[in-house]
């Protein structure tokens, strides 16, 4: 399935493992929650093998906290582009300190890319048909549709409240200097 990040289409270095496939020696593998839970204590920690997990939208993020430090990727599925739970799950994971790759998986649309990025997603994996209708240029254009956003502490373009604060500070500085002269 096509994979995108903020630069456009990229190749996927991650492999989804079915629960009965043995772990490879090296690489990057995505496990199910059940397998991660069952095998977590035995997972090799030599660093040649990176681990990711694919969760379900019904997940309670707190159940993932013990694993967050060991994971390099969390894939969050979207059942449809109008099912917005994934936005909140991503936000919760970032607030909980997860620093690895957050991947949105499902039939999302280009016009959602900026929101996905702001909530903490790095990559989007979608079906070939949607990607065919909405190729990379539409996804990248969507990222720059807005030059600012009002919500503080979300990622993305310029924060409007921060920009206003900076403008106020600058104005105060100018008037202070004028007063000093």
């Amino acid at each position, binding site marked *: 399935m096509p994979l995108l990040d903020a630069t456009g289409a990229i190749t996927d270095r991650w492999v989804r493992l079915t629960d009965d496939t043995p772990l490879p020696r090296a690489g990057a593998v995505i496990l199910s929650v059940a397998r991660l839970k069952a095998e977590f204590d035995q997972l090799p920690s030599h660093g040649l093998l990176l681990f990711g997990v694919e969760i379900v939208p019904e997940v309670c993020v707190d159940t993932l906290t013990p694993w967050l430090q060991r994971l390099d990727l969390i894939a969050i599925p979207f059942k449809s*582009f*109008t*099912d*917005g*739970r994934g*936005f*909140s*799950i991503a*936000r*919760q994971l970032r*607030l*909980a300190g997860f620093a690895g790759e957050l991947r949105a998986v499902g039939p999302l*649309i*280009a*016009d*959602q890319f*900026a*929101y*996905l990025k*702001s*909530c903490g997603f790095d990559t989007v994996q979608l079906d070939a048909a949607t990607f065919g*209708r*909405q190729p990379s240029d*539409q996804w990248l*254009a969507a990222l720059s*549709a*807005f*030059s*600012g*956003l*009002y*919500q*503080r*502490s*979300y990622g*993305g373009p310029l924060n*409007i*409240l921060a*920009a*206003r*604060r900076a403008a*106020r500070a600058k104005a105060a500085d100018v008037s202070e200097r004028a007063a000093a002269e």
Partner: protein
Amino acid sequence: MYRYDEFDHRLVQERVAQFRDQVARHLAGSLSEEEFRPLRLMNGLYLQLHAYMLRVAIPYGTLSSRQMHRLAEIAKRFDRGYGHFTTRQNIQYNWPRLKDVPDILAELADVEMHAIQTSGNCIRNITADPFAGVAADEVEDPRITAELLRQWSTLHPEFSFLPRKFKIAVTGSAHDRAAIKVHDIGLRLVRSPAGEIGYEVCVGGGQGRTPMIAQVIREFLSKDALLPYLEAIMRVYNLFGRRDNKYKARIKILVHEIGVAAMRDAVETEFARLDVAAIAADQDEVARIAGYFAPPVYEQLPKDSSTLRTARAQDGAFHRWVETNVGAHKVPGYTIVTVSLKPIGGVPGDATANQMHVLADLADRFSLDELRATIEQNIVLPNVKADDLPALYVELVAAGLSTANVGLITDIISCPGLDYCSLATARSIPIAQALSQRFADAERQRAIGPLAIKISGCINACGHHHVGHIGILGLEKAGEEYYQITLGGDPTETAAVGERLGPGLSAEATIDAIERLVEVYLARRQSGESFIAAYRRLGHDAFKEAFDAAA
């Protein structure tokens, strides 16, 4: 009132460009019909029975003359010369063409207006008390909060694909003119025992097919915690609100199913994780917004206007209009004028382009350049000198805007119904018109006193029938329209959902039945007792008997 800065301007302009591009990509096949639909809805564009409908936000109901003039120009240039003011402080145009919509949005952006999030499963237009800033019983102007929330909810990265629509209302007064108890979140500015101003937060109110009165989730929330606390509520709803059934997807169902105590626990747990200072708007930002809502410069006037007194004595029609349509202002010598958009036999909430121009001019001349749209589908001129009322009245008469019925039985709320709406199951406008004709007599209306009739053409309850003193719900069975009557609804601080009287009636029988109910009230009321007060004292059965006899 609030003025856009460069960032607000740029954002609405970028939104217009984005929508123009989305329309083009839809027409070119990049965005399927299914994908385009929520995008167009989040720009206020519905596909109705006969045409597209564009719903434009009037944030917290406040308009300048310039903005009202622009709304009139849009009605003239892109529509059929009129607009419809809704129950959520929006204006709807019923006949725009899809290809014109980006141009209309550009015209709106030019006067600091937009149609962003007037539909779709996102946070909708933030509504507030239409008497904000001029009511005597106010703790603080709720528009400061509403504007902060307008910005915070606009293009929210996390909360734009919610289980269902989400409505927030704010009031600054003990007397609730914003119907906060029937909103997903209702905020009331309150003063703590220590004198600090903050919010009482209610959650889970709503109308639709399962009407519910909002419950208090936080007795007192300090002002600087507002955005983080709302973020916590929204996140709990976004994650746990039902997505399996659109009729059970509103937050009221979640609150009802898990109970307000569990909801409170979930919200407080989420809230406790948040870095309040990193999310809240800083105090300077709030002060910046508050600055725009600083009271205008009022003249020092005597409390009593001899001009007004003389005019009232000389002109009975003017006197009656003042009695019903003019309210007390917090500043001596000023009044709050409600212009009724409910002429006898007219369409509730409709105004022609010419009437909008007149209202804009009158606001400029008599109301310090300000107008308000109300949830009762009327227009308020909030700053009129008592001395100016006679001159204002003359102009209103000339424009057909002098109906003296605010709060009376012909001041009917009605949704567009089956005449326009693709969701409707029955017509509501003709019912409103027939009732208005039936009770047209001015003396009779005054004798009946305050009585709110609210009509919805389907179970979605856009006409607020659940909270009408008399509510009417239009339904359809086997191709026939019929109407159910409810009694005892109330959208204010004493909020209540109306109780159904009995089986549905034909349109004609509905009008007769309501007349009969009014007669019961007139026969049994005590001195000075309003319809709703009499209903509460006498009980449902007293009215049901009369209804059953007629049905």
